[in-house]
């Protein structure tokens, strides 16, 4: 036997536990980006290069803004953790591909600077930054933000209203007529041949991405199921076409990727279900009664605001609580 070594160098004496799992913030954020990738690529394929440009502008602007703020504040630079990238990508998915370049730039910078970093950075923001960015853009440039490229023709510049827009202004019969028949309409909604913002068009790919995140345990299935289910039930109650509503607009994108943004939703599964039900109900309320054809964005933002209350109200059941 050789020499037995028992000397030690510097030992770390931090508190227990002394082992950690393999998860990290960066891993989670990049996984969510990955889950969004198929839908993002599909929109580039469908909308053409303008979609790619808009997406790149959103993402680069988000990262550069975060970098600049952290540099200026002398904080650790965390742009590589994928969360600024995700905010940029999500914002891009929420706007039409045809907007002029300065809009995504501005939206992304506002999302990161105002919604995220004035609150203290990742983990401290109350509102989903991408949705704040979108809301600010919609308020600043309402026309550009609701002028949608038609996907079917794949020609930039040709615009038409979204299915929900048509529903709001011209009615359900007209909407079905445009698609030909109901079945064709459902199929188009599901497979993405319709107009809309970049990320909301391919329901199928968004759902697959969402299932991947559920499978990996990064989001809870209850959130999309309850939110989309609430929209289905309430629209049916109000005599609308629930299938069309469940597949339209930003609902699928919102339910799988924004109502599941862990930072801005309740921390318990119970609380998340209340959140999802509230977001679904508000979506229907805005779609049917509000001035906008679509309400997912505001619905989720409104529920973000009540998240702290939900967390206070729905704490987990404590072990040994019954006396």
């Amino acid at each position: 036997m050789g020499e037995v070594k028992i000397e030690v160098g510097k030992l770390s004496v931090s508190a227990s536990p002394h082992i950690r799992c393999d998860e990290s913030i960066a891993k989670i954020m990049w996984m969510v980006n990955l889950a969004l990738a198929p839908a993002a690529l599909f929109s580039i394929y469908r909308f053409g290069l303008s979609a790619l440009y808009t997406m790149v502008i959103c993402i680069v602007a988000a990262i550069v803004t975060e970098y600049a703020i952290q540099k200026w504040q002398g904080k650790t630079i965390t742009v590589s953790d994928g969360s600024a990238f995700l905010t940029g990508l999500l914002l891009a998915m929420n706007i039409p591909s045809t907007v002029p370049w300065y809009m995504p730039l501005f939206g992304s910078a506002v999302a990161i600077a105002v919604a995220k970093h004035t609150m203290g950075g990742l983990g401290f923001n109350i509102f989903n930054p991408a949705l704040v960015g979108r809301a600010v853009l919609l308020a600043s440039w309402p026309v550009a933000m609701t002028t949608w490229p038609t996907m079917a023709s794949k020609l930039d510049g040709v615009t038409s209203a979204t299915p929900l827009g048509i529903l709001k202004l011209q009615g359900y019969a007209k909407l079905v007529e445009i698609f030909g028949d109901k079945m064709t309409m459902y199929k188009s909604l599901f497979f993405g041949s319709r107009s809309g913002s970049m990320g909301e068009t391919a329901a199928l790919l968004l759902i697959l991405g969402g299932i991947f995140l559920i499978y990996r345990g990064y989001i809870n299935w209850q959130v999309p199921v309850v939110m989309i289910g609430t929209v289905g039930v309430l629209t049916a109650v109000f005599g609308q076409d629930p299938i069309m509503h469940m597949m339209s607009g930003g609902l699928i994108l919102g339910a799988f990727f924004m109502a599941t943004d862990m930072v801005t939703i309740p921390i318990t599964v119970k609380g998340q279900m209340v959140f999802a039900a509230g977001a679904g109900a508000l979506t229907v309320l805005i779609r049917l009664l509000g001035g906008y054809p679509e309400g997912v964005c505001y619905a989720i933002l409104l529920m973000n605001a009540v998240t702290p209350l939900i967390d206070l109200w729905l704490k987990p059941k404590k072990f040994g609580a019954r006396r």
Partner: protein
Amino acid sequence: MTRSFRGGVHPNDRKNFTAAKAIEVAPLPEKVVIPTRQHIGAPCSPIVKVGDLVKKGQVIAETQAFVSSPVHASISGKVAAIAEYPHPVFGSCSAIIIESDGKDEWVEGLPIKREWQSLESDELKDVIRLAGIVGMGGATFPTHVKMAPPKEKSIDMFILNGAECEPYLTADHRVMLEEADRVVTGMQIVMKALDVKQGYIGIEENKPDAIKVMREAVSGTAIKVVALQTKYPQGAEKTLIKVVADREVPSGGLPMDVGVVVQNVGTVVAVAEAVEKGLPLIERVTTVTGGAIAEPKNLRLRIGTTFAMAIELCGGFKEEPAKLIMGGPMMGMAQCSVDVPVIKGTSGILALSAADINSGDERPCIRCGRCVEACPMGLVPSMLSILGERGMYEAAKEKYDLLDCVECGSCVYTCPAKRNIVHYVKLAKAQNAAAAAKK
């Protein structure tokens, strides 16, 4: 069907390093360092002087306090010094250093031979107290105190904790395999002393051989073996009782509030040794393991053997250890030196390599909820860490049930932001205690 509890985590258990290795009796140490504090409760004072000759099993430190336990010499030899010495739990503590005379002789009158059946409950408890037996799972609470609950608590069940849910550790596992009969005898003694009829042994399913051996060993007795789901912290008292007895220890309460007493495997073997042979607690089985140890082993070590000696017996370090721990990786205590001695509660000596630790920089909580899912006590660990970090200790106690935290570390293990929640919990508990003391 195996039963379970809410929450918990599934760390890689790494028990394969030592699970199949039989307990090895360590050679007689040349020197032992025996701290006068081996337990939770009142410290003992030395009753020997420098230069005294002592024998194995001789009492060398004691106190009259009830919540306390005497300390015995673990080798025969000369008291070389009584001095402050590094302690694995209390940082530093007065210790009695004995140099071996190489004879390893028992103090006069030991060992003896006794039938446990012939002793009454009170006599048994006395023997256990005088033998210096404390909880050997790590908590080191004096065993005789646990066995003498106040009159108004009626105890009707005893549970032997064979879960050994901490990763890496295999000492209890090996004791169950190799000394099953001693375990059963010790359990019968404890049950007689407590006057309880229901006895259970809870063992995690990752030890099928131990489940089998113990089932055979208890046949013909009233004791039952319960297979438990492999999930950390299955062996924490509250979760163990929940699963085995389906009773929930009330918040702020103790196992005796639901009529249960729990003991560790090593402890009941020590009880059997004390009652049947008159032997005090002077040695224990300890798992010496971790990615930095050349040849991990289960060793039978004299109390007072230094970590350095134990590690040397395992071939030393094969790589630079990043952390040295007494106990398991989830609840053990990090050490800053290999000079600390093995005490009665040293279930493991763990030298983890940097790769084992998998640490990362602490980041802000992203509210992912994983800690909430993992907490067996139904708390909101993220809030405990945030309030602890901000110094809002009272809010942590009043609004987020700080005192219900059992410091199991499940939340920290699972946290993607690498938040040191248990650190903040300990800090907040200490600050609350200090504030209460001031009033």
